């Protein structure tokens, strides 16, 4: 058997996967990136190997992607997150037309054509608004763990609005809503809606068509995904593990390279 690896070192998480000849996922790992992105990539890769029950010697080739793709020690090749998310999402959903990827510090909308080819893309990488970082700051202000934010939002009964786009100003809006005695559930919902609205703006710029798939860490937040589907007026699919789609794409590129 031959195996291939993909390592996605983003600003917040380092994700790695191991696949086989058929592109089947054998193991993965997700770790915080921390200060040393090179180390984080290696650790994630070791984690994925362990999960797959393999050793580095079993792997034919590794590709990297993500913000720190050039710094990954194990990688023989690199591709951008855009190409890798498209490739990975296409492998999971062959009829995907639009990908929305919201990571830690950026968000992207990608239009995908046949074979997972990128037709067009837009990126927001200039501002934390509408990114995972935004959610983290708001979860902090609400003193709620990030992965509980959507459960909290599910209990919302009153519609509140966060009007600031800027993360810093939005945080003070949240703080002021808390001090006005507004329910945390309603605030959590308002925060999710703020992200969803920003994201729809991004997606509309690239044009939404075909099946919509959401990737990246923020896709783990059900509230954001549901709101996104509601505003777009189209269902939004989320892979079982949205955070490793980029790494999966990288592994597929590694597999497709001849030799």
């Amino acid at each position, binding site marked *: 058997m031959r195996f291939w690896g993909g390592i996605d070192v983003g600003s917040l998480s380092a994700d790695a996967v191991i696949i086989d000849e058929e592109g089947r996922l054998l193991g993965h790992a997700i770790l915080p990136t921390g200060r040393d992105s090179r180390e984080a990539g290696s650790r994630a890769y070791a984690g994925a190997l362990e999960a797959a029950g393999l050793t580095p010697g079993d792997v034919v080739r590794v590709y990297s992607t993500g*913000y720190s793709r050039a710094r990954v020690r194990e990688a023989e090749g690199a*591709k*951008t*997150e*855009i*190409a890798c998310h498209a490739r990975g999402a296409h492998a999971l959903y062959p009829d995907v037309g639009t990908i929305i990827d919201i990571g830690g510090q*950026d968000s992207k909308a990608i239009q995908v054509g046949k074979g997972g*080819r*990128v*037709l*067009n*893309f837009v*990126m927001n*990488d*200039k501002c934390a608004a509408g990114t995972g970082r935004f959610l983290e700051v708001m979860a902090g202000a609400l003193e709620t763990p990030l992965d509980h934010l959507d459960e909290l939002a599910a209990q919302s009964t009153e519609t509140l609005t966060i009007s600031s786009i800027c993360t810093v100003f939005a945080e003070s809006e949240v703080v002021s809503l808390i001090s006005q005695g507004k329910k945390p559930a309603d605030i959590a919902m308002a925060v999710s809606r703020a992200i969803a609205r920003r994201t729809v703006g991004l997606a509309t710029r690239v044009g939404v068509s075909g099946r919509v798939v959401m990737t990246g860490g923020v896709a783990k937040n059900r509230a954001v995904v549901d709101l996104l589907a509601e505003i777009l007026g189209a269902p939004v699919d989320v892979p079982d593990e949205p955070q490793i789609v980029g790494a999966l794409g990288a592994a597929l590129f590694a597999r497709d390279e001849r030799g």
Partner: protein
Amino acid sequence: MYDPFHEVLSDVRGTILKQARALDRPVIGVMPAYFPLELVYASGGFPVQLWGNRLAPSRADAYLQSYCCSVARSAMELELAGGADMVRGYAFTSLCDTLVNLREVYRRVVDKPTVELSIPVTQTAEARRNYLSSGLDKVNRGLQEMAGGRMTPESLAEASELYGRVRALQRRLYALRLERAGLVSNLDFYAVLKAGSFLGPEYYAKLLSDLLEKLDSMDPPEDSGPRLLLSGLVYDPLELHRILDRLGVRVVQDDFANGWRTVSKETLAVENLVEGVARYLFGPAPCCCLYNPENDRHDYLVDHARKAGADGVLFWYLKFCEPDAFDRPQLMKRLTDEGIPSSVVELELSMQNFDAIGTRLSAFCEMLEG
């Protein structure tokens, strides 16, 4: 081979001072864009083109709104910080609202003379001439007062010949880049162009012809990355060309206001100066800042990209440049309709971190390479 040009850029101030001394002419700062340098030179001045710099704004913020582009902002910063002390006066065109306002701010804040060449916004060539004939004399008088020389038919003819020669040489460099894509790196190419902003025309023409002579016998490397056409106001920041080089991108043509839009201009006809300046301003390349119903930017850009055999068009957008931003969505749509992929990067002259833009550019390249 490119050292003389890079050296100019690593010491712009020293270069300008040295050139001004050698030419024995006062330095006149020429603001973007399309001010015929010939007029400045014929009035006895040494025109230096100021297309902004990498200074981070601080003092200029006291006078300019936050939605002012970094070209205008950094030019003013340079002046206020004392970096333009050798500039005796400024020549503006009414290129965009920002520059029109900037000149007004200069008139109040900066103790140096200025002139403004008003670019006509009219329907016909005749109306354009009428409009220019009323303002050109005043501009020329202002230039002569500033530079302290006299504009004569002879001085005009000399200036026209010199700058016409410079642009003709630059066009040869453009042609060479197109024919032998990859021969000149993107960084070197734009360094060569940019160096000309700070050099006397004769000296620069000599450097250019020496370079062209060397390049003539050289072959480009084997085919590599995608062929791009770049479109925007200003080809800075040069750092971005380094990234394009690293990605193996071969820029084969451009549509920059200080690139091809200026370089393509024919020798200024000086026998009938009004007619000559009118033709200089409006031909041959269209611009987002020039109103010319007879020269459609959409058709032009498609044609320009096709002729260059470009795989894609990259819009090089300087944040807050309104005229450029206004045209872009339609231009991009037209390119898409014509099957020419395009993308956009948003820039500021003083930017320091290019990581995110690097990702955007490589994703665009991956897209082009399919």
